[in-house]
């Protein structure tokens, strides 16, 4: 699923005019979008990420996050995703749109659903955690956020990168997949499958089919 989405996204990016596709170069640094209504927490998370060699954009609400990502509730259009966010980390408790609602909106968007979303919360409530993971959150961090938490996130992405480049087979996801298949693409083998049918190849040993905490299958190098 992820690969399809990623590829389709790459195509879209290629076709948008005036858009720099030096994607490969600019992707050495991970770009994280941090969402938190608390200024103190924004400062801290920003610093945690910067010190971990990430580019950071910090916004104070879910609404602003969606605007940044290119979907505005009012406009209901998908903007170019040239801002290339590799990870979204959001607080759960926020006025207006909660982190959970933001997560849902992101997962509902065909353009954005592959971006991993991590939820932060000061409350360690199991039902809350489960709900978020069920909805597709990659991870759930109990505040206060520490360097070790951020490091773990980075490791996620590195691991997924490595995995992805080795793993040319189809991947599985519970979510309904967007159908894409582009014959003009030569970078990936043509074994890309669309739709939600599972087509595990022998190399996709890391795929878990039913767990809500499925590993992320996307790579950020294609963004």
């Amino acid at each position: 699923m992820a690969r399809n989405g990623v590829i389709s996204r790459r195509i879209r990016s290629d076709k948008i005019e005036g858009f720099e596709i030096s994607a490969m170069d600019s992707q050495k640094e991970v770009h994280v979008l941090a969402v938190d209504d608390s200024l103190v927490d924004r400062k801290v998370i920003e610093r945690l990420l910067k010190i971990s060699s990430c580019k950071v954009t910090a916004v104070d609400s879910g609404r602003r996050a969606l605007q940044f990502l290119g979907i505005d509730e009012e406009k209901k259009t998908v903007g170019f995703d040239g801002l290339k966010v590799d990870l979204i980390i959001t607080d759960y408790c926020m006025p207006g749109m909660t982190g959970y609602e933001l997560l849902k909106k992101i997962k509902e968007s065909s353009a954005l659903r592959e971006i991993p979303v991590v939820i932060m919360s000061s409350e360690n409530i199991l039902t809350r955690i489960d709900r978020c993971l069920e909805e597709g959150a990659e991870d759930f961090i109990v505040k206060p956020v520490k360097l070790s938490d951020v490091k773990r996130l980075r490791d996620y992405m590195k691991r997924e990168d490595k995995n992805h480049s080795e793993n040319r087979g189809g991947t599985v996801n519970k979510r309904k997949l967007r159908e894409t298949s582009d014959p003009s693409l030569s970078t990936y083998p043509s074994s890309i499958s669309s739709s939600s049918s599972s087509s595990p190849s022998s190399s996709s040993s890391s795929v878990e089919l039913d767990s809500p905490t499925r590993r992320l299958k996307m790579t950020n190098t294609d963004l």
Partner: protein
Amino acid sequence: MRDIRRSGRRDSTRGERKYGLFQVISPSRSAKTGLPLWLLGLGVDRLRTDMSRLLALLFHQGVLDEQFLQLQQLQDESCPNFVSEVINIYFHESEKLLRNLRGLLSDREFSDYKKMGIHLNQFMGSSSSIGAKRVRNVCVAFRAASEQNNRAGCLRALELLEHEYCYLKNKLHEFFQIEQQRVLAAGVRYPIQN
């Protein structure tokens, strides 16, 4: 112990530099500074000890927890004032929250406990993010009282909260003052050592 007046260069290229409250004068003149002589270049270690001792005390009292240390780890040459910047934001926000809480509770007909809960959650969150353990714990108790619509309990909790916050603020101010002195004292060392 070196006599600062005799060491260092005789020319007055160093001149006078002002650092806020403290004034550093070139070694050739008799030292007349905001800092006592023994602090200039010589007291860095002493100040560092003072800082550690203060921190240790605050840890021991449960006023701060390891999240404060985490903040310190985020401070480096590229971001040398990170901790004080974040803490100052925290102070600013906390005082606003305290005013709001006080305002809500001064109203005899107050009933908006939900709003109170929102302020408290914010206060709890930011306190935990900077390692203000005791303040955060009082917020937890405060929130419990508010969930029970217990106005008297809330008033008591607010008093305690204001008290804890005051103590924290004073101690952190002290901490940053010592740190500032240490930075200055360390800075003075360099020219003397040539």
